[in-house]
């Protein structure tokens, strides 16, 4: 028990400095970005003198460490500053766009787990069969395809040539009444058939594209995890004792294999977050990824700081949660 608590404390203790380091890193890089932030705020019709005035007014001419201190102070109160481009509060922008990315990422994760794990298990159980070879081929290829290209090919095929799905954006009719911000859920809860159908159609291609890499990874790891367990001695022993294979599989194989799979969830989440940026750009999906891309392109570094911090925070938190869950489930991991 002691070891577990120590492990918890250690992991949580790493949490804060990691986030702080992240903040410093991103802040430093952002302040070096070319493109005058004061000019952005001043607007395109302002003269050079007006821009200079605004620069002083907003404190962009003060030394870096002072700017950093100000930023951290504001951060603690939840103020992420104002977008240099739109003048809106960054926290508000993030809040508004978060549900879109959440919906996309959750759906992609859902697809990966629902398809990837069974594929991995089946492939391992039916080793060296046609199915196994197909799945192995699929997983190796899945990690070699550029996700944005896959998205574009799917658009070309399913949207442009077959006319089955829309090309992009989240919905083609009026958005459903907001309860959670997830269109599919909200449409279902408010019994809005048109919105449900439209949002599902719009979600299909982006989620499928996004899930591809993590699906392949998940299938791969599940397969190897199952194979690992199957070949362990105690399984051999159980089977030799006459236990029906189905029970052996369900009782031992699955549980042990799934443990190694759960470790991948944290990694997968990072994959999905990273993939979201480019998928949202391809499918015009109005989430955090598109926001991050647009902010970077516009040199809107208040927005960049905000979105990078948010994604770093979420990623670190998810990994922490995964570690905690793992230690509870499998104490051996605490030794690592």
């Amino acid at each position, binding site marked *: 028990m002691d070891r577990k608590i120590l492990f918890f404390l250690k992991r949580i203790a790493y949490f804060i400095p990691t986030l702080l380091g992240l903040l410093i890193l991103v802040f430093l890089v952002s302040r070096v970005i070319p493109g*005058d932030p004061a000019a952005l705020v001043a*607007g*395109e019709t302002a003269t050079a003198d007006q821009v200079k005035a605004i620069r002083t007014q907003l404190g962009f001419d003060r030394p870096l460490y002072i700017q950093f201190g100000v930023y951290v102070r504001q951060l603690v109160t939840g103020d992420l500053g104002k977008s240099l*481009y*739109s003048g*809106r509060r960054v926290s508000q922008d993030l809040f508004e*766009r978060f549900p879109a990315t959440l919906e996309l990422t959750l759906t992609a994760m859902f697809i990966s787990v629902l398809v990837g794990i069974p594929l991995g298990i089946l492939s391992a159980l039916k080793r060296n069969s046609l199915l196994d070879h197909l799945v192995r081929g699929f997983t190796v290829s899945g990690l070699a395809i550029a996700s944005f290209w896959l998205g574009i090919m799917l658009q070309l095929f399913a949207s442009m040539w077959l006319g089955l799905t829309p090309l992009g954006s989240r919905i083609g009719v009026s958005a459903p009444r907001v309860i959670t911000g997830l269109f599919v859920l909200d449409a279902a809860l408010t019994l809005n058939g048109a919105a449900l159908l439209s949002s599902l159609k719009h979600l299909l291609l982006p989620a499928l594209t996004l899930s591809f890499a993590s699906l392949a990874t998940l299938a791969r790891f599940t397969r190897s995890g199952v194979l690992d367990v199957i070949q362990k001695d105690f399984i051999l022993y159980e089977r030799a004792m006459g236990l029906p294979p189905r029970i052996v599989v369900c009782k031992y194989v699955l549980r042990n294999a799934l443990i190694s799979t759960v470790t991948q969830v944290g990694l997968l989440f990072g994959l999905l977050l990273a993939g979201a940026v480019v998928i949202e750009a391809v499918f015009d999906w109005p989430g955090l990824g598109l926001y991050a891309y647009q902010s970077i*392109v516009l040199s809107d570094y208040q927005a960049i700081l905000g979105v990078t911090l948010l994604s770093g925070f979420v990623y670190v938190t998810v990994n922490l949660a995964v570690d905690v869950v793992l230690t509870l489930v499998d104490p051996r991991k605490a030794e690592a």
Partner: protein
Amino acid sequence: MRKKREESRKNTKGVSRRDFMKTVGIGSLALSGIHWSPIKAWAQGGSKYVWGCPSEFQSMDPHIIYDVTTENLRLNLYDHLYRYLDNPPKIQPWLAESYSVADEGRKWTFTLRKGAKFHNGDEITAEAVKYSMERLLALGKGSSALFKPILDPSGINVKSRYVVEFSLKEAYAPFLSIMPTFCIVNPKVVEGKAGPWGSEWLASNDGGSGSYILEKYSPGTGWTAKRFKDHWMGWKGNFVEEIEFRTIHETASRVMAMIKGDIHGCDGYLPVDQIEKLEKDPNVKVYEEQSMRISLIRMHNQRPPLNDVHVRRAISYAFDYDSFIKDVLKGRVARNPGPIPNNLWGAPKDLKGYTFDLKKAKEELQQAKVKIDRPIVINPMTGYAQTDDIALILQSGLQQIGIKANIVRETWPNLSSRGKDMNTSPDMWIHWISTYYADPENWIGETYSSSRWGAWKASSWYKNPEVDELLKNARTTPDQEARRKLYEQASRIIVNDAADVWIYNTKWYGPTRKEVKGMRFCPIGDGQECRWLSFG
């Protein structure tokens, strides 16, 4: 499933697309038929007009955001004292019934019409006009750059309930022309709200009097508005009850949405291939109108080697205008060799300008006194593929006369802010000058007067005292005929100095669903004013 996809793709190469669609598409077509019809019917049948926008709406505040795309919100949700209509653009009284000029162009008095209302029922008075102008000047964004040099807040006087007078710092003949860039905002609704002059509140809300009232707004997706029944102009005949301006970034998506009927109209400056696709579609009508939107390559006239007129002339001779206009743009634009659109008064009719002539280019280079010892940087704009094409063609031409050029893409906000400072201003960048207001001042006055240095339009950093004098006189003389002669003369000198490389004047190819009637195009607004529209 994946294998089948790969196989089908292999088949596409040898088999025509039609056959491919027939074999694979039949089942899916049936499926899509079931899914699509309710949504399609919804989009077309109801009285809601949907327009696809290429960019986002960062703010709904008409005094903050001021670019060509967001003209749609200023035209539909707000009113101006005077407004441009039709093509060629005519300035019409709108909220104002009449105006008068005194003191040789220094005092402008506007008389408002009586009984015009804001969306919340308040009457539009001269006080509101005064507040709106003070607000525009104080916020310093939007179209304030047009007014700031000539007007101080102290020069705005309310003469009576419906009469407002503007006393300018100096005589300014185009003052009436810039009135349509200035929106009237309801002070009672904006005062006291969050942000300087309520700008944080107005960024997501409605403070106007226009034909439509803002209903829903989301920065990433767009906005919807409902008809304002008590609009001062009244409503005759057929009209649309609801309008939506939806953000669809990708060109291909907008075009597909047009063809499918998800949207009824979209921007009229699409790539040529997409225009052709829309023209072929039986449900889409593509209107063709001569617009006023010059495409040009800017050159930094104060930075070597571009500070030598011979180098600039050489560059002007090294761009293949014909190939670009004929091959890439399929002849759908008009060559415009000078700074003012050919279809506007002030552009000299006999101006020949530069042609693609490598021999002449090399001859000019030989006369150059400045050494070209570094590659010139050309900046096309991110998201505007045509500027990439122009940059490539220019780079290729320059290479043939021995000038090395690097292409680096930058965004419009970055370039326009860099262009304010002589040190950070680009070597060469490519953009358009659209019709913000229909006066030569918009193209030549703001661009080539040295007094306008510090604004992105003047980023060629051109300085010629003779031209300065001509443009100053043209700006202050009230007589249009005299102004015309001055602008023509200035044009000729500027072209001779090869201040920039002017390429073409745009034609507007506005795609509209066939069921939409009443489209009224004006180079200001690009067909986005919805009060004239109806579903036939």
